[in-house]
């Protein structure tokens, strides 16, 4: 049985246009992944101030949107590939592909 995987998407409360577009695309990607893998839990966080950065476990880089899987930062300010995310999520869930 797959283990639960926590995915956290963090954005600034007041992002610029480019960050907003990237955020929207990652959010869509995560929602599609969640439809295929029901053990994925997604949390959306909005940072009001950079001072709060340390309140989020695993968040290390001040670039947004930031994506964490099980409290480990995967991307910051860039768009991940869906296949890359699925591979990480499966690995975290303990699902390994048979060769």
């Amino acid at each position, binding site marked *: 049985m797959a283990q639960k995987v926590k995915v956290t998407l963090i954005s600034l409360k007041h992002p610029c246009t480019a960050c907003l577009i990237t955020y*929207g695309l990652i959010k869509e*990607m995560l929602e599609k992944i969640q439809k295929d893998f029901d053990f994925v839990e997604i949390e959306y966080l909005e940072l009001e101030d*950079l001072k709060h950065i340390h309140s989020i476990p695993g968040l290390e880089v001040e670039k947004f949107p930031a994506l964490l899987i099980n409290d480990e930062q995967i991307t910051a300010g860039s768009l991940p590939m869906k296949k890359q995310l699925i591979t990480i999520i499966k690995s975290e869930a303990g699902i390994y592909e048979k060769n």
Partner: protein
Amino acid sequence: MNSKQLVIDALLNKEVERIPWIPFVGCHAAKLIGVSAEEYFKDSTNIVNGITKAYEEYRPDGLPALFDLQVEAEAMGCTLKYAEMNPPSVVTHPLEEGVKLSELKVPSEEDGRFPIVLEATRKICKKLGDKIAIYGLITGPFTMALHLLGTDIFYKMMDDPEYTHELLKFCEKVCISTARMYIDAGVDVIAVVDPMTSQISPSCFSEFVSPYATSIFNYIRSRAKLSSFFVCGNAKKNIEEMCKCKPNNVSIDENIPLEYVKKICQKYGVSFGGNIKLTVTMLFGTPTDNIKDAENCMSIGGKKGFILSPGCDIPFDTPSENIKAITSYVHGEVSKFLESNSTLGDVKVEIPDYKNEKQVIIDVVTLDSESCAPCQYMVEAVKNSAAKFGSKVRWAEHKIKEKESVVFMLKMGVKNIPTLLIDGKIKYISTIPEESQLEKDIESAVEKKNI
């Protein structure tokens, strides 16, 4: 020279007397006039009032008529989600939902919010167009393709390059049509804003973006207008490809070192702009942080072919004081700005009796030489030169982060930073002297005092 001419000359890669300043005001203008972002983006009167207010408050040399990269997408059937304090975002992609590319139509003046946006642009150009450069911002072809298709485009580029080219060809037509509408409305500059190209490699850029972007810039040139290519995010790898598309200017954000962009752009004869930090400095920093960032950018950018601007559109809640601090630095009015923004009434500073002192006194007014590069170079020059004169010379750094230094600055009539004074007289403003020249200056002051 008026502000508009400054921007035009900088875009044309000419030497200018003062570096032009363009704050990319988008939804922040809504805050300036006390409306929500949604009310702002949907109403031409609000857009005109917001931009007028930004012009009055921030004394820029240029402004975008509108910073909204969703206008074209909405007019082609993408659903937008509007927000109170942010630009709208695209939430559906027609091509992902089964609409065929052949069914999409190039938007005209009558579609979506174009009637509102163009009416506002015409009014802004009429009101401010003789004073400052007005930018018409269009969504770049790759970002537009992402709006229409969603993230599947990354797979299509590999699996179905033919379709990807068809899609980008269509986006090129939309870009040219939108550029035409803005040019007809009276703008001076077309900025092709393609932030999502930072997500692709130079080879993908060269194959899927360059042919279409080049064609868009050729069209803008054929209409005798100037152009800028905006990118956001870490697009360092693509700067050279962007230059090859032959825009007049490349504008970048904080993720790319300005020195690098300057070097590449100069190689291609393209002017460049950027890259004040939007989040750390403008949104969350202090006015002093903003002065420091502007100073660093301007010292790297120089007066030939450089435009000072933020990396992307200014966030809604950015404190106005931070933007005004940058304005004060650009116009050489830092002391006036600090005076009006500090409570200095009870701060007492004793000015040395320079004439009767038995030493030559050098004062350097800085932001902080530990964190501001030009300040550091000026302080180092003073330190090295003064050391050669032993006890005949003493020097001090006055960091304007401290109130006493602001009072000192005001009393000495120093207007900008870094400034070097010898025996109370201003000698160098924002220019780092050669050490040999500075030594001659000190020597002359030593001789004058007969010490």
